[in-house]
């Protein structure tokens, strides 16, 4: 499994599947019991490459006796960012995460969402080429989430890779280019989200007087065909098929009351691949 430059990569799996553990291994916080990984071609645990990496941990706990500005300065120092650049970068980031008015306030007084935002700013101090975000919106309100989505997009536009752990499938669906599904510590499938979203469509039709020979013709267009009473369901691989299928139904004399195509959502795919056990 490889994550490319300029790619937003989602890491999905039920609780306890090993998502956070994987990120921690990649960052050298945990030593892998077996296997190997590389960051920018260097083996895991190489501290030098971390100057190109940003990380927002899942449990964003920081030295809460520091003010927001001091907190960013300490981490800029740890990134060895020259003071002149840090002096410019820190106000920019505070602005970016909408915390500029709180720069002089101690982190102890911050709400959960504010802490998560300052944590995000901390992860971007060094203009990283790779950012690990572990549940980056878990403490945020809808506006905050939207904002983080924009930040992720701008990172991608800049050519950075974003490695995103998230429970929120709808968010992953919107932000990610590719996703990996992980179960019991193993990657079970890597999927391109553009293909999933543009791809298979499930259709539910409510119609009477459906001619049985129609079902045979329908099999040219789709799969998983099922007729129960006046409810007909099937899947078709392309959206372009829909007008043809509709015409076929009408031409064969079916009385169509409703025709509802639905894209296969990431959630469906998640349940399909990972199963329902454990839940999110």
């Amino acid at each position, binding site marked *: 499994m490889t994550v490319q430059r300029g790619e937003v990569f989602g890491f999905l799996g039920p609780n306890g599947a090993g998502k956070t553990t994987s990120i*921690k291994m990649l*960052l*050298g*916080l*945990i*030593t892998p019991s077996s296997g190997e990984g590389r960051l920018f071609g260097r083996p895991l645990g190489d*501290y*030098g*490459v*971390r*100057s190109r*990496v940003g*990380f927002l*941990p899942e*449990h*964003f*706990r*920081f*030295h809460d*006796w*520091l003010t927001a500005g001091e907190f960013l300065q*300490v*981490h800029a*120092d*740890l*990134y*060895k960012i020259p003071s002149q650049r840090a002096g410019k970068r820190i106000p920019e980031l505070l602005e970016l995460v909408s915390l500029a008015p709180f720069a002089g306030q101690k982190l102890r007084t911050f709400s959960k969402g504010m802490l998560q935002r300052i*944590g995000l700013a*901390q992860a971007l101090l060094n203009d990283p080429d790779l950012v690990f975000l572990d549940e980056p919106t878990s403490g945020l309100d809808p506006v905050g989430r939207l904002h983080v989505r924009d930040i992720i997009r701008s990172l991608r536009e800049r050519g950075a890779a974003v490695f995103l752990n998230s429970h929120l499938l709808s968010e992953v669906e919107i932000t990610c280019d590719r996703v990996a599904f992980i179960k019991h510590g193993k990657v079970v499938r890597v999927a391109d989200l553009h293909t999933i979203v543009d791809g298979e469509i499930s259709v539910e039709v409510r119609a009477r007087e459906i001619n049985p020979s129609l079902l045979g013709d329908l099999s040219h267009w789709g799969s998983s065909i099922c007729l129960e009473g006046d409810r007909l369901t099937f899947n078709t691989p392309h959206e372009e098929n829909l007008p043809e299928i509709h015409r076929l139904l009408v031409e064969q004399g079916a009385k169509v009351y409703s025709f509802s195509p639905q894209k296969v959502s990431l959630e469906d795919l998640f349940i399909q691949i990972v199963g329902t056990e454990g839940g999110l």
Partner: protein
Amino acid sequence: MSSLLVISRLTFREASRRKILLAALLLGLAFLAVYATGFYLINEEFERNVTRNAEFFQSQMANFLMMAGLYAVNFLTVVMTVLTSVDTISGEISSGTSQTLVSKPLRRWEVIGGKWLGYCGLISLYLVFMAGGVVLTAYTVTGYFPGGLAEGIALMWLSALLLLAISFLGGTVMSTLANGVLVFGLYGIAFVGGWIEQVGSFLQSDVAVNVGIVSSLIFPGEALWKRAAYEMQSAASGLAGGMTPFSAISVPSTAMIVYAVAYTLVILALAFRNFHQRDL
């Protein structure tokens, strides 16, 4: 700035922000005020009542009172060392604060090393301030100045660093509370062992002396105080064989000091190794 210095400065700033510096300073001043008042009043009484060999007895009294003050300072330094440092590693590991630090481009030893430097600085300041206050009181009131003061203070300092090293090592393997129990437990063993050795030496019981020596091998902190007391006490109070906690009958050897230095270094090295290897 090197990461080591960033972390040590952070340690200092934490002590200051958490009002530890202020509390230590104010209570230290209160301690010295009480001590100086007591010293002054006793000396007044002494000068009124003792007329024969006044100079000799006054220096004996000043030495006794100074040793009592330094004994209290030694104990306070021990408590300060343990209370301030016991949570610094385990607390940051369990809260996840260390994840943001260690994922930066720095080596893990720099985190422990920086904290070590920071705490060494804090403890040294405290010890110099308190012991300096006690010695200065004795000098101002009676003009008495002990021989072997530098050696004595250095040994008290070493004893505090020894505890700090144990507190660091404990912090890398166990919870804050367990670590506190461990450090004070070791101190307790050495304390009791030291007394058994003193009494045994007074009663010329080899077995009791050996118990003391073994307890000093387990934790040489108390032996360092005994040696410090020996260095600073006047020759006469040693000869008089007074059974006080501030004087030493059975004097720990130079080999015990070397052992204590080696002990500190080994413990500290183990703390570095554990933190380097452990999952965060």
